[in-house]
């Protein structure tokens, strides 16, 4: 009897934490209404969670009455991760322990414009901060992932034409001027690689490759635990490896790039006569639901991506290949043929065969990577005692030299 009661209590705790997570912040009365638990239960559980350091409370007012606002506890300092994809923007707030405290997705139009999208990104960041009861002063930095190669020295898109209209603009400057905090820009596949290798599927390996299969295809290379970006930030841009010498001209100017064969429009075109006009999302959902045509398109894409990734794998010799991006939501439909194509080509290591696994962080990988990028690039964030000590020592040395 007492066993079932304590498990009920446990379930209620989990429900409250999940609800606070979903809303960012809400009052105890609202928590009661949202979860269906009694006000007394909510109050008791919030007290427990507060003592355990899971949530924070502060006084606020709702329609003139005093109320207790409950938010997920975060350490001092927030990082902002932004992923601007071809059709979606995803923004997440994370604390220094890399705990995501709030996130929001915004659908974007095809070929969205730089000025509108950056304006919306800035407003969304401000809105999300307000939702968790914080301000821009608490933000230590903003990480942005773009679906194009980014020169890490300047933070600009380094290959012209891949994101139309985004070539000439210093994305980092625009946002840091607007929001008043440091901005770090990187390629989205690199951020996915960073996230998966620190918190996800490849965290146990030192050398890994993250493949992002979405509207376009990209890869992030991790060597010795570090993301390898290359001189101009184009390392791992497998979307622009030639696979069809007679193929269409790509936006980068070459002919028959991987993106012209397995990019969003290329996947939708063969389905047009049989399935009508679909969005990439529809193809993925229908493939999961067992539509043979859509499943075939995904499987063929998997095997072509696998061919290109096998070349990369031969050059890098990773222990593990992690597959993420929207297409990876189809699971083995994409991964099976992709793994098969790689196994046929890469030199087999008898001791430790190359593993091809799905991403663990799913659609969040890029924003989590952006948060990680901010935390790694920011000095004053205390990550662990050891790092804190070495930072103090460094500060001490600097003072001594002045």
């Amino acid at each position, binding site marked *: 009897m007492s066993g079932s009661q304590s498990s009920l209590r446990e379930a209620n705790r989990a429900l409250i934490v999940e609800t606070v997570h979903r809303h960012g912040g809400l009052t105890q009365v609202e928590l009661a*209404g949202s979860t269906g638990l009694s006000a007394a239960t909510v109050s008791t559980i919030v007290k427990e969670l507060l003592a355990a350091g899971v949530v924070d409370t502060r006084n606020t007012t709702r329609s003139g009455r005093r109320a207790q606002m409950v938010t997920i506890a975060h350490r001092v300092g927030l990082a902002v991760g932004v992923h601007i994809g071809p059709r979606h923007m995803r923004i997440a707030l994370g604390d220094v322990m890399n705990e995501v405290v709030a996130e929001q997705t915004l659908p974007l*139009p095809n070929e969205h414009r730089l000025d509108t999208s950056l304006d919306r990104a800035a407003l969304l960041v401000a809105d999300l901060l307000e939702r968790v009861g914080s301000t821009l002063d608490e933000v230590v930095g903003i990480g942005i992932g773009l679906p194009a190669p980014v020169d890490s020295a300047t933070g600009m898109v380094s290959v012209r034409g891949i994101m139309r209209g985004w070539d000439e603009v210093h994305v980092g400057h625009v946002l840091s001027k607007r929001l008043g905090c440091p901005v770090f820009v990187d390629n989205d596949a690199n951020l996915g690689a960073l996230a998966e290798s620190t918190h996800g599927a490849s965290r146990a390996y030192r050398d890994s490759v993250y493949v992002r299969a979405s509207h376009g295809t990209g890869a992030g290379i991790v060597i010795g635990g570090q993301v390898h970006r290359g001189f101009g930030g184009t390392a791992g841009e497998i979307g622009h490896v030639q696979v069809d010498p007679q193929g269409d001209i790509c936006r980068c100017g070459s002919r028959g790039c991987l993106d012209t064969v397995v990019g969003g429009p290329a996947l939708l075109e063969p389905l047009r006569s049989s399935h009508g006009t679909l969005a990439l999302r*529809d193809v993925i959902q229908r493939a999961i639901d067992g539509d043979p045509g859509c499943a075939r398109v995904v499987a063929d894409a998997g095997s072509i991506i696998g061919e290109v990734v096998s070349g990369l794998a031969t050059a890098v010799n990773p222990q593990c290949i992690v597959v993420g991006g929207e297409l990876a939501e189809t699971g083995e439909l994409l991964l099976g043929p992709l793994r098969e194509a790689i196994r046929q080509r890469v030199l087999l290591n008898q001791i430790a065969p190359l593993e091809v696994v799905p991403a663990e962080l799913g659609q969040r990988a890029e924003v989590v990577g952006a948060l990680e990028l901010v935390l790694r690039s920011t000095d004053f964030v205390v990550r662990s005692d050891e790092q804190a000590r070495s930072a103090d020592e460094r500060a001490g040395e600097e003072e001594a030299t002045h």
Partner: protein
Amino acid sequence: MSENPRVPLLSLRQISLRFGAVEALVGVDLDVHAHQVVALVGDNGAGKSTLAKVISGVLTPDSGLIEIDGEEQTIPSPSAAHALGIATVFQDLALCGNLDVTSNIFLGRELTDGALLDDGRMEQMARSILRDLTLRIPSVRTPLSELSAGQRQAVAIARTLIGSPRLVVLDEPTAALSVAQTAEVLTYIERLRDLGHGVILISHNMNDVRAVSDRIVVLRHGRNNGSFDADTASYESILAAITGATTQDNEMMRRMAALR
């Protein structure tokens, strides 16, 4: 989906409606399929809201043909529209500020348990609808007057899902919302589409329209003035059709759209 996807959920042919000397709608055609978001754009007074009212049974057209699932229908009243599976969110939302979220969602369609209202079940259903749409409403017991504009819009959208409609008409759902609230509403529209509903989205914001719709239909002075594939059409060509900047091109585009 058992229904034939080639037969539109809703098909309007040559709909005309005049108010005295005002020609509100002149020979308007519109097709909406299941699992599709069709955006209706145009200048002020182009007839967008009038067309929404015709679809939702508020106004009856002077002439023209309305087909639902390929069968000819008349929509004489809003309750007839509801019975045909058409739910509408009007610009002014038509919600009650003094009632809580659950009461608003079930307003006029309350569930009863014998002679009494079944509050428990309504609250449960309201909660599950809000969860299905991944709506961020703090509590189903909050009076509507305490919610933000975006949250009210969300409640109005949730309200449309009672009685599982097949077509949802949204009149300017993102006007006067902040970016975060717009993000939420656009995400709900994507959810509605993923759940297999047909959606008619009326909006002025080209960015929002192009973000979530499959097809964009332009009205100008109550007439069709072009139909675009949202993925490939440029801002410029849509704006030109709205403002009537390039009449000849529009004629050509209309012909091309008809061929498609």
